[in-house]
């Protein structure tokens, strides 16, 4: 018996070695380098020079950082309070399996199958000031004065970029829908017999049972917008001014335009801490770490 147990442990270790090696090589080592270099002045070519907390001090003194952080947090809030609830609502509607629900489900998925780059380019054309669909539509219905250079005016740029991803919540819908199918149909049927309306069933039965998967959805969505880069890079590059700048874009600029790897990596560390913070908060709020 003891021999068997030792042998099993050896096999477990053997099977884990490749995964652990890949993890160390592709994740742990770069993460360690990122954290270490965030305390250095480093241009990627010369040896790193230790500067303590200088990069972090500079970051917190930078107006650009505060704007980028504000924008990042606005997107995080939009993801948590609009994107995820919208995805959950769609899944609840689809779960009723009314006529054509499969078509709606597939259609809702399509934008998620398009690459972010293509989607961003598509919206660049939609938001074009002269021939864009949005302005053409507004002109067509006599609302000429509502037209804008949507992606390049400070007042509209952030709002416009947000709308590029905000409503495409198919991933949230999918995971929620899959969770819904796991819930015993008996619960809803009993409630119906007791006279509960569909809305009451959703609010009082399904939503509490979906709490943890919604928490997972919030983590996925918020961490996703923390990392958002392609959409901004393609549409506005963070402008006009800093109107659409976020932390990921700021990191890119520091590396590409001034080779400030230490500074950029300090931003990366802050981004990582933000993501961990979201994970911890969601764990608590949605009781994701508790057993059934």
């Amino acid at each position, binding site marked *: 018996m003891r021999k068997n147990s030792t042998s099993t442990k050896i096999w477990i270790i053997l099977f884990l070695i490749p995964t652990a090696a890949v993890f160390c090589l592709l994740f742990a080592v770069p993460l360690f380098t990122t954290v270490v270099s965030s305390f250095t002045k480093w*241009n990627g*070519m010369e040896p790193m020079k230790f500067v303590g907390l200088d990069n972090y001090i500079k970051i917190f003194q930078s107006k650009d950082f505060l704007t980028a952080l504000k924008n990042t947090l606005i997107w995080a809030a939009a993801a948590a309070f609009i994107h995820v609830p919208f995805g959950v609502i769609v899944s609840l509607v689809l779960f009723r399996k009314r006529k054509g629900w499969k078509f709606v489900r597939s259609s809702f998925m399509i934008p998620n199958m398009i690459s972010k780059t293509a989607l961003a380019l598509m919206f660049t054309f939609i938001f074009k*000031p002269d021939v864009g669909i949005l302005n053409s539509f507004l002109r067509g219905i006599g609302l000429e004065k509502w037209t804008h250079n949507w992606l390049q005016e400070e007042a509209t740029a952030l709002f416009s970029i947000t709308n590029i991803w905000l409503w495409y919540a198919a991933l949230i819908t999918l995971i929620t829908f899959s969770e819904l199918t796991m819930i015993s149909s008996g619960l809803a049927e009993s409630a119906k017999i007791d006279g509960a309306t569909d809305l009451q069933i959703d609010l009082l039965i399904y939503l509490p049972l979906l709490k943890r998967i919604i928490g997972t959805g919030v983590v996925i969505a918020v961490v996703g917008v923390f990392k958002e880069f392609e959409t901004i890079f393609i549409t506005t590059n*963070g402008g*006009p001014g800093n109107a659409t700048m976020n932390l990921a874009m700021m990191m890119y600029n520091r590396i*590409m*335009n*001034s080779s400030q790897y230490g500074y950029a990596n300090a931003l990366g560390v802050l981004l990582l801490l933000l993501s961990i913070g979201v994970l911890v908060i969601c764990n608590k709020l949605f009781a994701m770490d508790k057993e059934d």
Partner: protein
Amino acid sequence: MSMIVTLSACGSGAPAAEGGTETTQENGGTEDSGNSDVGEGGEITFTYLELGDQGTGLEDFYREVVDDFNNNNKGTYAVDVEWMQGSSPDYNNKLRMLNAADQLPTIFDAGGEISLYNTLKNNGRLVDVKPYIDADPEWKARLEDDCTEQFIEDDGAIYMVPEAAMCPVGIFWNKDLFAKAGIESFPETWDEFWEACDTLQAAGITPLALQTAGSAWTSMIIATSYMSSSQEGIDFMNLSFPETYDTPEFREMMEVYVKLFQYCNPDAIGGDYSLAQNHFTNEEAAMMINGAWMMETLRDTNYSPEGFEQHVGFTTLPGKTVVYSWNQVGRVISASATEEEIEAAVEYMKTLSTQEHVIRYFELTGGYSSKVELPEETYNNLMPTMKEYADMFKDIDHVIPNYQTQWNSIILNEVFTTDLPALVQGSIDMDQFIQIMDDAVKQYEE
């Protein structure tokens, strides 16, 4: 008549500048040269990253040179080219990434962005090619004296070898649209230029094809050419990496910049180079600045209507000014190359400057050498716009350096892309913009 190009005072700079290199392709994809046999049979093969510049004559020219080099050096040397699709900033970013991974190609163009060149040079990433130039008097004689002198660094080394011919930036103008507005010739002074813009606009024609994205090539060139209006302006433009932009000349130039946007399509704000080019080649704008490398686009029906090139003129910017710098294109060799690869790459550099290739360079891109006589037949066969370009060289009063070679990469790639739209639309005022420029100087110096 045989035409001898004599413009020793004028520098070169071929088209690594944004206008010449940005294409309509949005991605930064790459294409292999297809030379699958290179490197075989004991040949010394070296790598070369070049911008696939679809729609202009640049790519055609470099492909010809590469083919000639590989054919003439079969069994000895072979160049393995990666044709990268994308814009000049994409190209520079790719070089940055390759450099970070210590995987720079043997030979590449480091002239597009001087900040990058300086970083590579200061960190010992480039080969000193001066001994090779000194060892080959014939090659040295083919290079413009001005440029070789300019390229000698403080340590006496030469790291960058420019093209053997120059490609100044002037202005393309649509003669038909000007005629429709009742204007017979291109304005020579700034007052006449603004008057022409007003007249075109009054006739329902958009005067200028502009952009703010990238490094704002099509708009910033016009504005910086305005600096030739005063000696102080010229002096400012000759400063490499100015310490401050808070000068009367720069302010005045930026006022001109803002004014330009009264005369363009609304999507110029935030628009990129390809958008500006499309407006011009689709006759939606009457003027666009660029170098002669855009000539091929004018007769390429993928970009322009049939016969478009017949009614497009090319001339100097107001004040008989053109814009260029020798170092806007310059090939360098990576220090990580082996001695054999370095020698092979030097041979490739020499091939670029042979008389035959300099003439082809002129035909395809407008590259002009003071050391090579342009055959009469070549001149006679040029399309009308190219003839105007060639004739323009007799009538240049001012040469303003290309701002891309004078200002730092944060300004070019970050401030311009994000803050020029804000300035033009009035979200920030001139004082704020200049403060942002000066902050970018400080940040770059850090």
